[in-house]
């Protein structure tokens, strides 16, 4: 702890000073944030927008660790988004992240979780139920649904960052809204490979089994958009609760295995077997204060006793069943007059109930809005309060990210 404080103080002097000077300069020179561009031709409307975000990452390494390669500037996002409409009924969108494409191209390997394509779909709105076909973010988990440019931290955290479940996939989504958009219902069927569909050459795994998904959320007293910050300072308390579920049975045919990397870092995203995933989330905002709660529960039945999820335990112990999951609590306050957002987030995650260990994370965030949250300097300091040394051993005791995000 003392070591952390010492390092932090030095970093504070070296980095923060310069950064705050830049922030001061920006606050003096910045005009209104630039914005998206819209082209119209009759009933055809095309909007182009994007996001550029980069940060400096510093790790407080454990004694004995010698690799400082994660202390670096990182281009987090360079996204371009083309969103179109044809009349009242047709919509389409194509979003690409050039930061991921450049990394994949230079390394010659497609990062299965960041393939570079963020969405490509067509949608029809002319029926009571909206129909969407293509590759897009899944309507699962409020934290995952919220756009990255609208959240006050640099990362969502382990629970909802895509480590436990895929956040995007190819498939069909049906959705509908009721009661002045206070109730939203989603249902869909997808390949179940998530972002890994591209690394697998566009094919499904050998089971060919899809993943099914459903979500419902209810807000009051009005519709509640997926934003984590109350920039406006709403004059009435607003609530939203949501529940969602996913199911896939990807038991592999004899002699087959699920594609390499499909399971993700913790072998949880796609499993060779049956996977149920339940989630519950809630959000609140009032007079610039906002809070989010979320929990996730994974019930897994890997088909083979050799599956690493069983952690080598005998069948009599594991009963062919593994659980994982956790919860997250986050509070934010938008100090409008200082153009600042303060955030604190706590997460508790158990990656495998058969393997001893649990991890807890604390994140502290500060964001300075140069003019709005479209043009923002974000600082995030996060550290494990409890480390899961078996399932997720770490080389560091804390991490600091300072960067700038510009949404145009």
């Amino acid at each position, binding site marked *: 702890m003392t070591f952390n404080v010492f390092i932090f103080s030095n970093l*504070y002097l070296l980095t923060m000073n310069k950064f705050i000077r830049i922030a001061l300069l920006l606050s003096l020179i910045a*005009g209104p944030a630039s914005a998206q561009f819209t082209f*119209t031709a009759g009933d055809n409307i095309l909007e182009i927008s994007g996001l550029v975000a980069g940060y400096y990452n510093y790790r407080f390494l454990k004694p004995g660790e010698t690799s400082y390669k994660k202390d670096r500037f990182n281009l987090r996002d360079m996204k371009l988004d083309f969103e179109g409409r044809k009349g009242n009924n047709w919509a389409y969108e194509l979003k690409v992240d050039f930061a991921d494409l450049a990394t994949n191209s230079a390394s010659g390997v497609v990062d299965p979780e960041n393939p570079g394509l963020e969405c490509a779909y067509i949608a029809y709105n002319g029926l009571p139920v909206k129909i969407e076909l293509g590759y897009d973010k899944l309507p699962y988990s409020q934290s995952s649904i919220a756009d990255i440019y609208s959240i006050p931290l640099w990362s969502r955290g382990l629970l909802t960052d895509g480590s436990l479940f895929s956040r995007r996939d190819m498939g069909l989504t049906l959705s509908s809204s009721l009661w*002045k958009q206070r109730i939203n219902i989603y249902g869909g069927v997808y390949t179940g490979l998530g972002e890994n569909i591209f690394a697998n050459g566009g094919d499904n795994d050998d089971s060919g089994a899809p993943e099914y998904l459903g979500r419902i959320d209810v807000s009051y007293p*009005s519709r509640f958009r997926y934003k984590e910050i109350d920039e406006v300072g709403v*004059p009435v308390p*607003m609530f939203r609760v949501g529940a969602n579920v996913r199911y896939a049975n990807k038991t592999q045919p004899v002699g087959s295995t699920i594609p390499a990397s499909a399971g993700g870092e913790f072998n949880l995203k796609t499993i060779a077997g049956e996977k149920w995933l339940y989630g519950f989330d809630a959000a609140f905002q009032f007079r610039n204060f906002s809070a989010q709660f979320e929990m996730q529960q994974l019930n897994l039945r890997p088909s083979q006793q050799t599956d690493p999820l069983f952690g080598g335990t005998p069948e009599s112990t594991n009963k062919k069943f593994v659980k994982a999951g956790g919860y997250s609590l986050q509070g934010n306050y938008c100090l409008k007059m200082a153009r*600042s957002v303060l955030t604190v987030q706590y997460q508790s995650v158990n990656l495998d109930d058969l393997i001893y260990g649990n991890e807890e994370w604390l994140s502290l965030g500060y964001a300075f809005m140069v003019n709005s949250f479209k043009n923002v300097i974000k600082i995030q300091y996060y550290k494990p309060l409890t480390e899961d040394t078996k399932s997720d051993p770490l080389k560091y005791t804390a991490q600091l990210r300072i960067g700038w995000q510009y949404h145009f």
Partner: protein
Amino acid sequence: MRYILPGSLIILSLLSSSYAKKNIASAKIKANNHISIKVPEPSDVAYDAETGHLFIVSDNGLLFECDINGKVLRRSPDKGMDFEGVEVKGDYLYVSDESPRRVYRYKKKTLRVENTYSVPYWGPRNSGFESITYNETKHCFILISEKNPVKIYEYNDDFQQVKEYSFNAAKDISSARWYKGQMYLLSDEDMCILRCDPNTYEVREKIKINILNPEGLAFDHDGNVVISADDLQRLYFFKSIPANNE
């Protein structure tokens, strides 16, 4: 040196707040009552002095005629895409369709479109012209881009642009109304009405309102204020605001 961060933040906060502390008169008003209306996502409201009715437009590209209590009397058969502003002028209604950047001229009696004007705007699709009103002081229409940035554009009767003004006194503008020689602008995110000089659009007074998502602004024949709220699908009624007594 340990005080660099807090010191800097204080300076930043002072810099940030300085623009908001210009010498502008301010007041606060409370709604007398509100009603729910059967207009989906009401985005603007205009008062017709001839009939005493309200014309309300919807995000769904619909135009409604309602009585002063918000009861729907008629709905136009002509549908648009994303109606965000409405104004009454003589025998006509002028409606701003935000996404396709159009203004429709409706015949008030029939509620049918008689003419369509193209009003190009390259900014964000959903931050286009949310406000339309006729500035009787300068004898021109004005359209205002909602945000990023807020700009006031003046047009002649054929909707040819004649002048534009930058506007930095609010985060966004969701409605505008000329009334008795004053220009009133409604800000959704700042939750206030700004009374402005109708020639220069300089803010003279800021009137705070405590309403979630206010999007439309109208004055009835007595100067009472009517505000439509999109998300809650409501009309709010206020007594005349202090500035009307000038």
